[in-house]
């Protein structure tokens, strides 16, 4: 069995396919009380125009397969538990991304008795993506920047991000 795997590994080296971008992130999205704007724009980021998959960014169905928990909305009281369960289901290392101004605690929304003031009230936020809603380019730029950690080369064809785009 292991002999076979070593054999396969050597074969793959010898094939020497052109290397794509190094690294990838698998994202699990959780809507914690958005207005649906961030969902539309996240779908557009994965859609035919922006095609974030080419940068190694994928939406995954289960938090168990996810590197990043991508959260929209201010975290309503009725979504808090489900959000915490999804976070607890993720393997380490894991990142939390707050997508949109509500998730970042813009405070514009509804009755404070019905929701928290952003993702930061329940989970440690690593990636902050501002906007109401952030447009697909902004979303892709921030997520690609999250891959630019030590040991990760920047994917080819992706412009370097400015200071405001650095993951928080």
């Amino acid at each position, binding site marked *: 069995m292991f002999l076979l795997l070593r054999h396969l590994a050597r074969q793959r080296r010898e094939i020497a396919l052109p290397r794509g971008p190094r690294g990838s992130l698998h994202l699990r999205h959780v809507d914690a*009380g958005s207005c649906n704007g961030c969902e539309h724009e996240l779908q557009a980021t994965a859609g035919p125009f922006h095609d974030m998959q080419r940068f190694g960014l994928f939406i995954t169905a*289960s938090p168990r397969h996810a590197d990043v928990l991508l959260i929209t909305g201010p975290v*309503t009281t009725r*979504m808090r538990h*489900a959000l915490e369960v999804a976070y607890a289901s993720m393997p380490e290392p894991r990142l939390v991304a707050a997508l949109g101004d509500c998730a970042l605690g813009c405070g514009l*929304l*509804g009755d404070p*008795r*019905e929701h928290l003031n952003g993702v930061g009230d329940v989970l440690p936020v690593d990636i902050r993506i501002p906007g109401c809603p952030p447009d697909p380019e902004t979303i892709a730029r921030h997520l690609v920047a999250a891959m630019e950690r030590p040991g990760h080369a920047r994917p080819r064809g992706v412009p370097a991000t400015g200071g405001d785009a650095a993951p928080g």
Partner: protein
Amino acid sequence: MPGVDALRVTTVGPWGLRGEVEDALAAGGVVEALFAAHGADGVAEVRCVVALPDGPLLVRCPLPAGVAPSVVDLVPALDWDEREAHDLHGVTFEGGVHRPLVDHPEDPAAWMTPVAGTDVHQVAVGPIHAGVIESGHFRFHAVGERILHVDARLFHKHRGLERAAEGRAAPDALPVVQRACAACAVANTVAFAEAVEQARGMWPDEPMRRARTLLLELERLYNHLNDLGQICAGVGLAPGAMAFAGFKERAQRVVHGLVGHRFLFGSVAVGASDLPLPAAAVAAARRDLADLRADATRAGRSLLLDAALRDRTRGTGVVSRDEARRLGMVGPAARASGLAGDVREGSPRLWYAGFRAASPEDPAGDVAARVEVRVVELRQTFDLLDDLLSGPLGPGGATVAGSPRAHGVGRVEGARGRTVCAVELDGDVARRVHLRTGSYANWPAVARAAAGATLPDFPLINKSFELCYACVDR
């Protein structure tokens, strides 16, 4: 035409509410919304928005004991309205079994419909779904693959937006209403603004009517394109899903070029319309929309002729005409079931003179009919957009043409159907804001359409309505 939609307000005691509703129905009226409020003296009351053939009517029913007679047996479409009034405002309705709607009790028996029989099992889905979708929980009762019944437990996203809007001056309440839903931001804010303007006795001038109609049709454009793409995704028709996702993106770029926001946020104001709409941007938009129209029309025709798509959509998720009427369905889904009715046909505050709603060739109430109705409505929307963009566009406003009143009701045809906003003003301050969207009206119909279908068809049936959760949860 000031005064054509003047709102009549009548007050009855709890003993008179059912009679009032029966009279309205006998006169050919439609009860479009029921909600609870608290009067100035703190007494709870139930209010009904009724569309009568001779104009809108607001029925107020103060409840000194907090108990109202249920009218769900007369108007089944008000089931969710009564449950919400109970959960959020503590009103008790006599004569029905109460199941929580906004409240989320631990015990499923409290909110589920009991379904019994041999081999009936439950499938729980959500509130977190596998794709990029809004949050909601569905409980399927199934035998094998066959769905017997679905309980939708929404309101996971309830943000208390109505309460947050209350106590603010009307212009400050509008951004709160806008954030009920991004995809329906224009429909919801125009309904709110019209309600406020009606209460203040204001009438919009021609540029303002044209500008708001333009915004509403732009919103309908990218929503219909989105919905068609989602339906294709629901059957795994990747070329269709990709094509329409691309069309939607192109439509949103046109919108951004015109207004500066991809969801038209900030484009509607109370009593005024000050969109800049520079001539160069308008010309570019007309050009881009003409290109988009050609491509979307060709793709739409392909969808209607696609044998594989028709195979999956014909006879799937049927809501009959009678059932649609009973459930109070609205919008494209209702027209797909053969129900006439489009608020655009009677919108004196907008620019729809002579508009007649399109209907599908075969209004069978299935997924195929809901595809077709969007394809034919897109044609009208492109026509309206070209007409509006080729005519004069500029800043507009509303002038005071009548005496101010406390109550106003706005009715707008959003992409998912009739959106009703009822507003109570105290001077400039909004005392009560209630928003009942097309999605709110149609969610019970999704459950009805799914009964008898197989579990794998549910996503398709759901997408054929493509309702917002945010619009409902507020």
